[in-house]
């Protein structure tokens, strides 16, 4: 994915004069934001309410009920272990959604801190950090994730760590550039002359000014994070059985593609819908928060 070169955002989008509710309402007039939010909210509601929607335990095996096609009892069929697919898809959604969110949040925090330090300190430290960032960026992300999970061992937490590490350089580069730019602005000099130390300058002047770029970036990368975390699950390096997760469920299903299409189709549809929703939301938020890159 391309990294949108966002400038330290202009403040005009977040005019303080308009009360919050008004700006939220205005934002939702944006079609894709509204549609994306709707999709995400519905999906979130479904996975949160999973216990109300299905009585099955997603891990409960049943030797008598393997590979059942969708029916009234099992609306999405059952899998190789006779587990109810609907329960697995709904409970699995919780894992996928939270994991994606955790990935971007962790990546954003670590990347932003690194970028702030590199951009503000400059010099040898900044140079070292940024060359490391270049190194990580010069390598296809999914391969890096593979290597990291190979080191840490498979598992959901390790998968989340691996993928957030991939996001770190992306954020670091964005924030470093923005920090350097803001660092050179007179209001930072003014703060220094007023006696502010580096940490105070970073926290009160630079961070708030790069935040909107970071948020825009986060919405763009949330979808990518979901794609990667599920890809890891699909390769078998994500969550460990019997815990359900959309990528892992798809992995279970792929071996039986022609015999049990429901094992592949349902989780895939949910996953795609989720990513579409997230991307729509991201597009909308970007337009609303960062008018400079809207066309």
């Amino acid at each position: 994915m391309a990294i949108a070169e966002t400038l330290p955002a202009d403040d005009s989008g977040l005019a303080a004069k308009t009360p919050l509710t008004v700006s939220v309402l205005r934002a939702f007039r944006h079609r894709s934001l509204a549609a994306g939010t709707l999709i995400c909210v519905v999906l979130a509601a479904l996975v949160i309410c999973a216990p109300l929607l299905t009585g099955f335990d997603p891990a409960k095996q049943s030797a008598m009920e393997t590979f059942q096609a969708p029916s009234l009892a099992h609306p999405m069929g059952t899998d190789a272990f006779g587990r109810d697919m609907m329960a697995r898809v709904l409970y699995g959604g919780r894992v996928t959604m939270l994991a994606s969110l955790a990935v971007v949040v962790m990546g954003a925090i670590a990347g932003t801190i690194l970028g702030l330090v590199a951009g503000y300190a400059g010099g040898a430290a900044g140079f070292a950090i940024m060359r490391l960032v270049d190194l990580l960026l010069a390598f296809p992300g999914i391969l890096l994730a593979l290597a990291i999970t190979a080191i840490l061992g498979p598992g959901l937490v390790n998968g989340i760590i691996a993928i957030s590490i991939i996001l770190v350089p992306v954020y670091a580069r964005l924030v470093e550039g923005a920090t350097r730019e803001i660092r050179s602005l007179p209001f930072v000099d003014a703060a220094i002359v007023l006696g502010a130390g580096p940490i105070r300058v970073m926290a009160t002047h630079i961070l708030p000014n790069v935040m909107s770029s970071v948020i825009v970036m986060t919405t763009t990368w949330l979808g990518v994070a979901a794609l990667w975390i599920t890809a890891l699950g699909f390769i078998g390096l994500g969550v460990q059985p019997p815990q359900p997760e959309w990528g892992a469920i798809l992995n279970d299903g792929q071996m039986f593609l022609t015999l049990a299409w429901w094992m592949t189709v349902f989780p895939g549809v949910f996953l795609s819908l989720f990513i579409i929703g997230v991307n729509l939301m991201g597009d909308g938020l970007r337009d609303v928060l960062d008018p400079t890159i809207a066309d």
Partner: protein
Amino acid sequence: MTSRKLPALLAAAGLCLSGTAHANELVVGWAETNDTLNPVTTGKRNVGPILSNIFDTLVWISPDFEVEPLLAESWTVSDDGLTYVFKLREDVTFHDGTPFNAAAVVSNVEYITGENTQSKISLGLLGPCAHAEATGEYEVTFTCDEIYAPLLAQMGEPYLGMQSPAAIEEYGAELGQHPVGTGPFKFVSWTPSQSIVLEKNPDYNWMAASLGHDGPAAIDKITFQIVPNPQSRVQQFQSGQSQVMQQTPGLYWKTLTASGKYTELPVEISGLGIFAPINASLFPTDDILVRKAIMYAVDQKALIQLAEAGVYPPSYTPLSVGMLGHDEDAEGKYPYDPEKAKSLLTEAGWEFDGTTWTKDGKTLSVKITAISGKAHYMAQAQAIQGFLSEIGFDAQFEALNAPAWLDLNIDGGSTLTPSQYIGVDPDALHFWFLPDQYFNWSHWTNDELTDLIYQGRSELDHGKRAAIYQKIQDILLDNAVILPIRQNLDLTLADKSVTGITWSGGGFQYFGAASIAE
């Protein structure tokens, strides 16, 4: 638009593969990539079947473990059991024209034991008998440091296939890409991770007698297409892009054989079957009662039903059906009995509160591991996890890549893990149950057992050997250090037009006697 671009690209890549086979040409859907085609340096079981078509061994082992003449016409064993004299056929030449004789056998043995040869399975098979001497132009004598009963059967494993001394000399480290044997098929080409092509050896005329086939193979060319993804392998076979497929996943075996359109070849891979060693040095399975509870809690038949559509016969004892010493009566030893399992846990001092078992503040927690890339291990481990959870175990599952999996189990960090071991002789047990072996994954030893294993190895009388291995199996099961899961079969399917595919004892598909109906 791509159609115009593609031929050019293909030409550039120089990789034009013909996907479909013509008459008398066979495409085999193969499940695993090869490390080498050098029988001496391979460490992979699944290379064996390909090797057995390129290389002949001194003896042939039938699927029922009868040892027959192949490159050796006859042999004698000295009374002390330390000397084997093989009389060799005199009409055999290697694919490169080098004549096969006693000197060639000696070269092979010297190559296997050579300091710079990265020998793997082969070196282990020779055991203490790795000394060969040409005692005539066509007579070779093996001497052993100690009595080694498994030798004769193991001589028939493809990892001891005879290679051309000229090729050994010429290719050095590259020998694995230029296999030259005396077998019914000659090596043509090998594209790594894609395909291996063999063609008929027109001079072949020394097939093992029990196969009932004279002269060269009927099939002109075999292409082993390497398709690790089981789903793809099945699709390829169903659509006619291959005529033979190995390692058919259970569920597909069930549906495809039900159609009656294909020939079923459940190739029996001998050895210890599929089993899970139970770690007797790790809490809580360091308690024999907990181990026994596990044995009662797992229902092999239902496990196979869950993990592999019920297509495999279960196993109840370490040694495979048909092997020397296989214990027919083991089935009744640990019937599926969850109540019995629970009472054993109670007896061991565990208390059940309806969801979890606790003892001295600890929960009854076990760690089940499996190799992440192997679907059947993953499924078996999950099924075991299901059975143990059923009676209240806190059963954790962890999938690991192969090196990490080996590491963890060698270190004793996992409670149980499905595994397999292949061998043609019951002495295979020694790898898993002698102290100081890497694969003593039960992490358990017993002096009586150790003695018996050594006795079994040096006993030449079949009846007495069988009795020794009966006893060994009793000890293993009584101590509940191994959970047998199922027979190890390579579920091979062939198109009805292909007949005569067989396998050598141990489970190595053999195409020398196969033919394709027009």
